[in-house]
């Protein structure tokens, strides 16, 4: 039998070597010869052998072509013939074990995954001794336990390489893709030499893992084809029937978003009970870098209800820290009983205020309010932001890279070089805050700033409030800069007096208006600069007390100024320092190039250490990226030398959509079988029957392939021999008989 019989038409190619042989056959010339005594018998035999070699070579070449055509036609021996020949039949069997987060659910005393292992053992028990077995774990990234299939006849090997590792696997924390696992299983099966391939998918039938009707996923799993005759894929469901409650801790919200060392932090989270039973009390622990810091007890929680937990801690030091909230309650699924967030605590934020005062002589009166808002007590240095006020002239000589935020407080002009340096600072991921008050001129805004790189808009005339003070409205409620205002007053700044303001027409759509008068005159704008997270904030009214009474409104001015500085200071860190990253999203860290980093490692939630290479990027920064974050949990980035930098933590939360309890419906299964992605859904009792339905033919391909290789070797050997014989035998002239030749 041939799988691709039309390939046999290639047999006509056998005529090619025959034709070549016949065409190249040399015509024999008869000659009467006397000196026969010099044509010795042994030599003659050798020459005859060469003649024989010609025929042998022809035969070998015909055989090579014949075997190649047969190879391409995929010859197989029918199952019956194989059984007669070998006394049995065999297949490469692969078991796909679903290791998604939902398989951690307790069903009775054992998890679903433990039930899957038991089902896998039953499958292995039904296999014949000629079969081979592989195991593919369908986790966040499907992988095969062994590089090559293990012969079923080798019990010790099967136990040690396939089943023992299953008990060592940590609980599944991520989702799984059954199509991707089948793709991996096909690869594992291909490594087996047997013709028939059988895949058993042992899973809890979660729709989120199986992805029915996702044609692209399933086509990719089979390389754009259906399973075919040689590959049989069976679905073996292991459905969980848990009667326990399921307590889940939701994602953590940290307040404030930018905590500082020594300051108090509030942690808010949800606690839900998705199980069928209510829970009397739920003990909750708060851990700070692994150390218990707080403990609360949530009273009775009904089935299907949720509540909010609030816990507190004080951040001990600046840098990266992780906070975990967990409950030790015994429920259906342990994976969602804790939640972690990472915080980046500031020590202080260096802020430079460039006052409108041109020379150093003076008291910087224009900046006194904003300076006081950032640092109420100059002696105690209580504020997170630590401002330094400089005049326009002295600011030219200040190294700007020392500061996270530069506030340009209403100067009438700035040196062009300083404007360019400020723009470079913003491009590197830091913040620049322009306050345009009574000193702002159109020449400064419309000409000087654009020539230095800033295009903040077109400055028009100064507007006055007149009799009625304008109402200030929030134009961008989602902006984190307005967070204090939004939370305190919800809709606007109430009770403030605005006398004058500059008219500013925004430069482009990228520049957002955050605060404006009711008539639409922008009062506060923000725009991003570069790709490093740098921001520019523009206020169109001064803070020196002449145009408004904002500085006197401590309830809104202080948090607004500080929030603006925090946001501007976050800059590049906003892109990288997040409390969570989604599974699969990359870890990105940037840091100063001083002190130098020799090497870096990432410790993943499984305790494996991976080396990463810090790269020096433009702007004097190191960049570390790591893409393999499919496994939820805490990732620790460490540096060498260790003393130079503290560890940086990244947290990958579990994807709660993977806990969607929906299982495959009959329609889903119908879709899978109709597309030939699954041959049949079977129970553990039907394993033997399923194996019996596999064609279990015997492929002659490997044998033929070996024969082709052997023939090629023989052909090469014959050609080499003949090439040696054919080598020119001319003797040099001085070797001709040196006689008295007359």
């Amino acid at each position, binding site marked *: 039998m041939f799988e691709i019989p039309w390939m046999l038409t290639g047999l006509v190619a056998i005529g090619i070597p025959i034709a070549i042989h016949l065409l190249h056959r040399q*015509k024999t*010339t*008869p*000659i009467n010869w*006397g000196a*026969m005594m*010099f*044509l010795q018998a042994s030599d003659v035999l050798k020459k005859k052998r060469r003649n024989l070699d010609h025929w042998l070579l022809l035969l070998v070449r015909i055989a090579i072509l014949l075997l190649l055509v047969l190879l391409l036609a995929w010859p197989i021996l029918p199952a019956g013939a194989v059984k007669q020949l070998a006394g049995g039949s065999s297949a490469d069997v692969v078991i796909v074990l679903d290791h998604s987060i939902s398989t951690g659910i307790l069903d009775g005393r054992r998890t679903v995954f433990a039930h899957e292992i038991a089902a896998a053992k039953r499958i292995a028990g039904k296999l014949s001794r000629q079969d081979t077995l592989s195991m593919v774990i369908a986790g966040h990234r499907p992988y095969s336990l062994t590089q090559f299939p293990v012969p079923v006849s080798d019990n010790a090997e099967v136990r040690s390489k396939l089943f023992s590792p299953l008990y060592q696997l940590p609980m599944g924390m991520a989702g799984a893709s059954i199509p991707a696992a089948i793709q991996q299983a096909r690869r594992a099966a291909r490594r087996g030499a047997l013709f028939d391939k059988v895949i058993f998918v042992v899973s809890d039938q979660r729709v989120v893992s199986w992805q029915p009707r996702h044609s692209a996923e399933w086509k990719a799993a089979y390389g754009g084809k259906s399973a075919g005759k040689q590959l049989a894929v069976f679905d073996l469901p292991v459905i969980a029937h848990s009667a326990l409650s399921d307590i889940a801790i939701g994602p953590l919200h940290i307040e404030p978003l930018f905590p500082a060392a020594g300051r108090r932090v509030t942690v808010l989270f949800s606690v839900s009970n998705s199980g069928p039973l209510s829970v009397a009390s739920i003990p909750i622990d708060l851990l700070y870098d692994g150390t218990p810091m707080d403990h609360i007890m949530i009273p009775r929680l009904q089935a299907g209800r949720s509540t909010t937990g609030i816990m507190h801690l004080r951040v001990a030091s600046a840098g990266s820290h992780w906070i975990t909230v967990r409950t030790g309650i015994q429920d259906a699924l342990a994976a969602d009983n804790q939640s972690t967030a990472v915080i980046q605590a500031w020590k202080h934020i260096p802020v430079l205020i460039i006052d409108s005062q041109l020379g150093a002589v003076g008291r910087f009166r224009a900046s006194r309010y904003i300076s006081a808002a950032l640092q109420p007590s100059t002696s105690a240095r209580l504020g997170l932001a630590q401002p330094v006020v400089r005049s326009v002239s002295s600011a030219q000589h200040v190294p700007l890279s020392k500061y996270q935020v530069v506030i340009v407080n209403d100067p009438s002009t700035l040196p062009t070089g300083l404007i360019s340096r400020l723009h470079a600072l913003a491009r590197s991921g830091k913040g620049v805050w322009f306050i345009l008050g009574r000193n702002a001129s159109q020449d400064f805004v419309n000409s000087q700033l654009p020539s230095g790189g800033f295009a903040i808009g077109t400055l028009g005339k100064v507007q006055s409030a007149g009799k009625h003070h304008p109402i200030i409205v929030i134009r961008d409620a989602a902006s984190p800069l307005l967070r204090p205002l939004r939370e305190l007053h919800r809709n606007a700044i109430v009770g403030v007096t605005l006398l004058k303001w500059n008219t500013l027409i925004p430069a482009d759509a990228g520049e957002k208006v955050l605060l404006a008068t009711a008539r639409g005159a922008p009062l506060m704008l923000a725009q991003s600069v570069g790709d490093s997270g740098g921001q520019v904030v523009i206020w169109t009214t001064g803070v020196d007390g002449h145009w408004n009474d904002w500085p006197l409104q401590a309830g809104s001015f202080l948090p607004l100024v500080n929030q603006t500085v925090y946001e501007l200071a976050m800059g590049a860190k906003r892109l990288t320092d997040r409390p969570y990253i989604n599974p699969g999203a990359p870890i990105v860290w940037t840091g100063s190039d001083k002190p130098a980093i020799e090497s870096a490692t990432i410790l993943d939630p499984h305790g494996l250490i991976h080396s990463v290479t810090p790269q020096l990027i433009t702007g004097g920064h190191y960049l570390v990226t790591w893409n393999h974050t499919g496994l939820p949990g805490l990732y620790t980035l460490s540096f060498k030398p260790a003393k130079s930098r503290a560890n940086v933590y990244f947290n990958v939360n579990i994807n709660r959509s993977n806990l969607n309890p929906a299982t495959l419906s009959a329609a889903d299964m119908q879709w899978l079988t109709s597309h030939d992605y699954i041959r049949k859904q079977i129970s553990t009792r039907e394993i033997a029957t399923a194996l019996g339905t596999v064609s279990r033919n015997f492929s002659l391909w490997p044998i033929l392939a070996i024969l082709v290789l052997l023939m090629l070797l023989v052909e090469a050997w014959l050609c080499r021999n003949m090439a040696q014989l054919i080598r020119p035998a*001319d003797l040099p002239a001085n070797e001709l008989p040196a006689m008295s030749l*007359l």
Partner: protein
Amino acid sequence: MTAGQSNTMPMPGHQAATTLLDPNMLSKISRLDMVARQVMDGYVQGMHKSKHIDFAIDFAQHRQYVPGDDVKRIDWRLLAKSDRYYIKQYEVTTNLRAFIILDCSGSMAYRGKAALSKYRYGQFMAASLAYLTLHQQDSVGLITMDNTIKDFIPPRSTPSHLINVVNALEARQPGGESSLAALLHQVAQQITHRGLVIIISDFFENPEALVSALHHFRHQRHEVLMLHVMNDDELNFPFRKWTLFQNMELPGHRLRLDPAMMRRQYLDNLRRHLTTLRNTAAGLNISYSLFNTSSPFDNALSEYLANRMKGRRA
């Protein structure tokens, strides 16, 4: 004989003789005497040295007188000068008895691209040497053989004897298997008097047997000349295409070969054979010369004879 005389030489009116004896060629060789380098044993006084040193004309040497010598042979003049008794000894010249042995086995018929077959080449050589020998008043005989002795013409010195030799050469055609070594033994037994034995053959024979036969001749004190005639094809084996080699001496024996493959081996075998013959000839003081039928016969023979003349003078 002069060059002018050669135009009318040697036997007008005889067809066979005129075919084998080309006047131009004869004019070249007639001035070259066929001189035996070795002492001949003849009865008729000729131009060749005799083993008898006694009563002839040419002075050879003085020898001290011993009692018993004939007193007539005492050199009285020397006695008068030196007061010592010496007798004079003289060298006797005798005529040459030459036997020309021509191999007429089948292999001698090979011609290839040459103008003459080996046998025809040998015929010309035999005829010319016979003419030359008779021309210098010596006697010449002819023996032709393949696997048996076909012709045996005893040596004569009469001019008319050339007709017999030439007719016998013309009448004989090559064919049959070669048994040169065995027949040379037989000839060596039949030739009782010392003489010159000229063997013209391709010597496709077992070298050991051939050496034994040549020993036999030398044992009989014959001077032996080996004139080895080969075709250029046999010397260089220039064939390239597949060839069916049919044995000229053994009908039915054939070999189908790729000559390009065989050439190195063939030439090795040939060189070994020729080296054996040359070394054997040198060891037995036999003159050995290899003739290629592609070179003109007259030039080759005259050069050969000239070389022999030089050897005599030396």
